């Protein structure tokens, strides 16, 4: 198992290089650089511009800049933000808990609803329940995040006045972050109503971000479950006189979960991409909002570093999923 993790980690290096290169080139293809963006319409003198560019190393050929950047991150330095002059890593670590909190809630929402929905649809195949679950899942899957978010805000926040529109917690409450997770910090602060306020701020973003993974997980669970329910060993389980709950929930589900777990792992990537949009819609102060702003400011180090860090996390989670896959599937575990 240990060797497997090492091998899997080494494979990550080329992936990282490719991601670093793509981000590096892509942001430079966008017209305008950090200095032009900051000087605005009036502009500054050509001499001053050249001076600034030289300071940031932007006057070098792109390949040279890229190699310098690689050298820099090779030494564990992700650089400093051009707009705030704070180290990228530090900004990231400050904002990341907000994103994690949102993504985690969305994932829990998707898994907790998606797997049972898929199982129910599979065991009631061809019935009204099956068609409704799958119909809702397909709709959810096809829903553009920004539109879905706005619809929910219109209904729950504007019409029904049930949930707040934006932010992580009501302005009434203030406490210093301990863990960075608002739900936990609000509990730790001991202030009345803080936790409920944090929770109510989380509901809509969670639903919006979790909808696509939910639909994917439900559909995947249904199809693998259908396949597994036709297997000989499910018949064996029934031949033992086990209850339908045990047959489906233990014998079939354990096997059906193997591909579903892989999909959940892949969904983490989707979740990060979705988080960028969702955070923007709900003014959620996380990585997504930070990245969008860095694009607008052409803050090269922030964008490059942020994307590298996010991809690192996505890759890490996928490695964890591979490990979990081995735990679920003894054939993989012993095959190595």
């Amino acid at each position, binding site marked *: 198992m240990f060797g497997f993790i090492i091998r899997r980690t080494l494979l990550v290096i080329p992936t990282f290089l490719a991601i670093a290169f793509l981000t590096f080139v892509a942001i430079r293809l966008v017209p305008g650089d950090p200095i032009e963006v900051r000087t605005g319409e009036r502009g500054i003198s050509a001499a001053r511009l050249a001076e600034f560019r030289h300071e940031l190393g932007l006057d070098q050929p792109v390949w040279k800049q890229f190699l310098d950047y690689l050298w820099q991150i090779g030494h564990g330095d992700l650089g400093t933000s051009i707009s705030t002059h704070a180290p990228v890593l530090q900004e990231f670590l400050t904002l990341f808990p907000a994103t994690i909190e949102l993504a985690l809630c969305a994932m829990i929402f998707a898994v907790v609803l998606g797997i049972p929905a898929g199982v129910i649809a599979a065991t009631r195949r061809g019935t009204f329940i099956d068609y409704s679950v799958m119909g809702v899942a397909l709709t959810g899957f096809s829903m553009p995040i920004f539109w879905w978010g706005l619809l929910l805000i219109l209904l729950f926040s504007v019409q029904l006045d049930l949930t707040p529109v934006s932010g992580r917690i009501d302005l009434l409450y203030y406490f210093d972050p301990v863990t960075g997770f608002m739900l936990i910090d609000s509990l730790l602060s001991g202030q009345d109503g803080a936790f409920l306020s944090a929770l109510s701020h989380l509901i809509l973003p969670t639903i919006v971000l979790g909808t696509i993974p939910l639909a994917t997980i439900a559909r995947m669970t249904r199809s693998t479950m259908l396949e597994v329910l036709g297997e*000989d060993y499910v*018949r*064996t389980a029934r031949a*033992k*006189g086990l*209850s339908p709950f045990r047959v489906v929930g233990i*014998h079939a589900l354990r096997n059906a979960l193997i591909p579903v777990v892989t999909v959940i792992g892949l969904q983490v990537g989707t979740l990060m991409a979705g988080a960028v949009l969702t955070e923007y819609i709900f003014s959620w102060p996380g990585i997504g909002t930070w990245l969008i702003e860095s694009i607008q400011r052409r803050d090269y180090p922030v964008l490059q570093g942020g994307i590298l860090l996010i991809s690192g996390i996505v890759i890490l989670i996928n490695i964890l999923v591979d490990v979990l896959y081995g735990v*679920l599937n*003894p054939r993989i575990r*012993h095959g190595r």
Partner: protein
Amino acid sequence: MALLEINDLSVDFDTASGLFRAVDGVSLSVDAGEILAIVGESGSGKSVAMLAVMGLLPWSATVTAKRLAFDGRDLLTLTPRERRKLVGKDMAMIFQEPMSSLNPCFTVGFQIGETLKVHLGLDKTARRLRTLELLAAVGIPDPERRLTAFPHQLSGGISQRVMIAMALACRPKLIIADEPTTALDVTIQAQILDLLIALQRETGTGLVLITHDMGVVAETAERVSVHYAGQKIEEQPVRALFDDPHHPYTAALLAALPERAKGRFLPSIPGTVPGQFDRPPACLFEPRCRFATDRCREKVPPRQGAIAGFALCHYPLSHGRPIGHPRPEGREVAA
């Protein structure tokens, strides 16, 4: 009273192209401690009939019967919960594909122990002891080590032994073995069969052996029921069946055994088992039968008495000659 009584059992499958009758009016009985072989080619409904007894058919199947009773209890009127208390405990089934019949995600110990836990409520230590005992009983070397093995680490023969151990776990009164040796190597087949028979003798359980191998039948069974296209077409004690088959299909099956073949060429039965769309109106074997007459095409054959092996035939054979047939020599059938 027989252990298993089946009277006029029919199973219909609801397929996209209409109802398909896989089992057609089958009656059978198995006594305690008896070995009954059910013989027939693929598609003769022999497995489906037994799956119906176990209650393991998919939702698309409809089971109807005049009587379906096990150990004096009417299986048709039991609630699913009551039925699950019988299935796996008093009647158990062994399947054709041992490798895919074990759940790949759980250890051998768990899968055997589960039956013990659900039906007998044994605690962990008791389960472990009983499982070891069972594994030893089915001749698995080093049972201690196999307890934590996963199915993919076992050979086909060992997997089938595990399945047998699982079936025996709660000391059932009836074991249904659905082609238990078909998927195994020839050398292993004999071992598994011997094991099944030895365990059956030892424990005195009833055994239904579904097979298409006449050799297996001759070696093991006491009584044989021959099935064709969902119907039972003949039933006799094993010796009598081999000596004097009464249904032309049984006779043709036996004639096709290499050991019994006469002449240079191995005789075979022309044609195939009728399916959903080419079902003959009267006798189902008529298109392939060398004795078929117009009567066989028009009139559903009667069930003969015990003396003619309960054959479902207008002209049951007696020592190879059809009784009451207009041309007893029969027609030549292209082989």
